[in-house]
């Protein structure tokens, strides 16, 4: 009896272990099924398009965040970088604040600004040997501060229709922002799978000392990862400006929490070395579907945060393989 019962649980355990990488997908499918049962309008094609639209900006953000978290570091400057890039982009297109009208040149400008701030993150973190937690928090504050100082509390309102089309235009019935997000995922996937930097990220996150002995250029890789993360945040800032038709210092508010949650719920370990950008895409979908679903199911507002918190814990518990962790901090 005793042996039999142990045998069965072992069997179940090993099945879960073997398929654990699919856990986030299972969570997503279950979540969709429950919501669709309560409110069938959830699977209405128009709602699916809205879900993709809501997922677009967070998806771009988690691409960079995943790289940084894969190294076992963290990037808390997301909201700041997004805000300055959104402000720069909105001030470069036709607007009410400056007389500039550079049209779509605002897109590369926003991305490059993000790349530069990300680079500063990386260099400060590596050369000053300050934990990424503090470096990125500080740089994020500086970024919001700069945006505040330039705008003095104002909001830049965008009047450039061509720039707004980055969010409002539909291609094959799907908003342009979603296509941009898809392109961002492909770029991130390429970096992860087909470049040395991608391999090195896993090596650093897995065991930095061994990676160093194996000849991985730790410092350079770290700086590059933060720069790339900044570039993705910059792109997200451009997209946010196009979506909301404005740029201001507080544009990023609330984005950091969603980003980190999505990465972790998707199954990328905060301790580094385990995960993938595709995991994070699933993580974003879980967060977005949950949010959309709670409104569709008519959950009272005060219950929503509680449900969100519980689901995050449940998803992480299922997705993360903790058997190899010697201790949990």
């Amino acid at each position: 009896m005793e042996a039999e019962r142990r045998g069965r649980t072992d069997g179940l355990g090993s099945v879960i272990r073997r398929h654990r990488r699919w856990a986030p997908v299972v969570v997503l499918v279950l979540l969709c099924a429950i919501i669709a049962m309560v409110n069938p309008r959830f699977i209405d094609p128009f709602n699916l398009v809205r879900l993709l639209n809501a997922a677009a900006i967070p998806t771009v953000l988690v691409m960079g965040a995943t790289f940084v978290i894969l190294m076992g570091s963290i990037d808390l400057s997301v909201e700041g970088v997004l805000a300055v890039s959104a402000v720069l982009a909105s001030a470069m297109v036709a607007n009410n604040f400056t007389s500039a009208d550079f049209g779509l040149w605002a897109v590369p400008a926003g991305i490059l600004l993000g790349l530069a701030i990300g680079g500063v993150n990386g260099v400060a973190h590596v050369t000053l040997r300050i934990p990424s937690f503090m470096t990125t928090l500080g740089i994020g504050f500086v970024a919001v501060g700069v945006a505040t100082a330039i705008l003095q509390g104002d909001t830049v309102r965008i009047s450039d229709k061509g720039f707004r089309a980055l969010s409002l235009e539909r291609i094959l019935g799907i908003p342009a922002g979603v296509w941009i997000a898809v392109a961002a995922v492909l770029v991130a996937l390429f970096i992860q799978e087909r470049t040395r930097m991608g391999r090195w990220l896993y090596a650093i996150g897995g065991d930095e000392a061994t990676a160093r002995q194996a000849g991985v250029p730790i410092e350079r890789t770290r700086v590059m990862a933060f720069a790339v993360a900044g570039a993705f945040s910059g792109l997200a800032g451009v997209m946010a400006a196009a979506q909301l038709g404005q740029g201001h210092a507080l544009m990023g508010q609330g984005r950091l929490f969603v980003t980190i949650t999505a990465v972790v719920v998707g199954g990328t370990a905060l301790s580094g070395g385990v995960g993938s950008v595709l995991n994070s895409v699933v993580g974003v979908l879980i967060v977005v579907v949950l949010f959309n679903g709670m409104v569709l199911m008519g959950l009272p507002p005060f219950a929503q945060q509680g449900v969100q918190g519980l689901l995050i814990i449940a998803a992480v518990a299922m997705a993360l393989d903790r058997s190899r962790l010697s201790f949990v901090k």
Partner: protein
Amino acid sequence: MQRKKSPIYQLDRRQFLTRSAGFASMAAMASALPRDVLAQAADYTLAISMRSVANPYHATFTKGGEDFADFIGAKFATLVTEGNSEKGIADIRALLARTNGKLILNVDPNDSPDARVIVEDVANAGGFVVTQWNKPADLHPWDFDPHYVAHMSFDGVPSGQRVTQALIDGMGGEGGIVALGGILSNVPAIERRQGLELAIAENPGVELLDFQAADWNETKAFDITQAWITRFGRDVKGVWAANDGMAIGALEALRQEGLAGTVPVTGIDGIDAAIQAVRDGEMAGTVAWDPTWTGGMGLSIAYHSAIGEINIADEPQGHREFYGTGILITADTVGSLGAAEPENFLDFWGKATGQIQYRG
């Protein structure tokens, strides 16, 4: 450091300008203000304390205070809490020490409990203080005569009610409304929601389809509005938001569906983007809070109490804790906006609308 330096630099420049211009403009200034007032203006430092000039309301609030300081030719300082109560209180204490208590402070406390600490500090140092929006219900100006001059606020209930009526009018008097609230426990969020409910109760043809808290956040408002379009489809005839930021988020979500301008939206606060949207016919209304007035008049009342022009202890309670006037902006009134006359800083209670009530 930079922030601490700049006001001092401005003070020096202002002092320099007033002094050098003094002889030339003596006649003009003397006709506007009695001479002893001029002498006293130099004694007091005027200061504004608020969360951040990154938000347009506080930027204009500060500008109002600066306008009044310019008007009387006094020194002016700006203190920023950055959402940090400790920093807000520490900065005020430092300024009290530096000015030897010769401080006139107009403060929007970061959090209600801060108000008590600030009032006690200012009273002990012999300064004068006016508070805005946040204070504990049992803290009253008349308990600290004459140093705690007044508390100013805006009543969210009538404003919420009037803007809801503007929304319902924009919907043609009937149909379903969805509503975006602020952070559930915030006093303005609670009051504005009460106003919404009062207006809906007065209009039997109108139904509140759903109420969600978007926490004053435009991105959250965007996502919730998208989900509502799925849940209620064409039944959504109007979107109500407890502030303009969320209203803009909702408006952009409607634009994604080609519904901007078809489904009316309202907000509260009167930010530029919302006023433009009212002008464009995409929003049915908003309420402006007149921060130039709160910034300037808060300092004016405290200053005139300090120099003895007003005997504040003898003023009725309605002049110590009072609401300002929210200005409803709709398509009909948006045209006349901006033509407003410059603030009259000597009409102390001209825009006050009644004593503050504490709702259980």
